[in-house]
């Protein structure tokens, strides 16, 4: 899309804002609407925007398909791993109270870890599905 300067420049300016806003949604989820799922989708939207404007070849150079697939799995592992950590610290599965001396601090850490897992999974899944759809040229004319 070499002749579409408007799109390229505008996208370049906007993508950092979208990523920053996704982080805001992620960490502001305790206080307002938002959370891991929404933040993951917004992250994926920014990445899909990049892939649309600069071509999926460049997008694959930034983040190969293997990495994206791995993201989908790693997020679930973060989530489940949080549960096992709480078990190791003497609580029950996903009981965040034991993560810190103060139970409410433990809840904070646990929720942040879990939401991070959700974010990573959702980002990976959305981008993987986009790759699967967009990378597949129609075979019959």
């Amino acid at each position, binding site marked *: 899309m070499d002749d579409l300067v408007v799109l390229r420049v505008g996208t370049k300016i906007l993508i950092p804002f*979208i990523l920053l806003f996704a982080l805001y949604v992620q960490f502001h989820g305790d206080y307002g609407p938002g959370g891991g799922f929404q933040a993951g989708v*917004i992250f994926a939207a920014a990445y899909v*925007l990049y892939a649309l404007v600069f071509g999926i070849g460049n997008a694959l150079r930034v983040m190969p398909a293997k990495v994206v697939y791995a993201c989908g799995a790693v997020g679930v592992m973060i989530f489940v791993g949080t549960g096992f950590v709480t078990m190791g610290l003497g609580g029950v599965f996903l009981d965040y109270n034991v993560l810190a001396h103060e139970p409410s601090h433990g809840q904070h850490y646990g929720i942040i870890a879990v939401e991070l897992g959700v974010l990573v999974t959702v980002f990976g899944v959305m981008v993987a599905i986009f790759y699967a759809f967009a990378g597949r040229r129609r075979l019959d004319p």
Partner: protein
Amino acid sequence: MFVAATIGILASMAIVLVRALLGPTVYDRVMAVNIFGTKTVLLIAVLGFLTDRPEFLDLALVYALINFIGTIAVLKFFAFGDLGLTRRVERGPE
């Protein structure tokens, strides 16, 4: 005042929806979706003021930031026949 704004935005939403229903070409519909996005941003903001809880503007921010991705996908779809490519590729010998 915000009542008037709400009614005005809803009315113009309805008009745009008529354009989307009539839309002779698909581009009319895409444009209708675009305007609808802007109007939804405004409606959400106005509704926040109307119900005296204007803290929900994060939602308007989401729409303001990422609602144009769909339009760019439309452009890619029509200009290149595919979402992944950056130049038009003729079909292979088949």
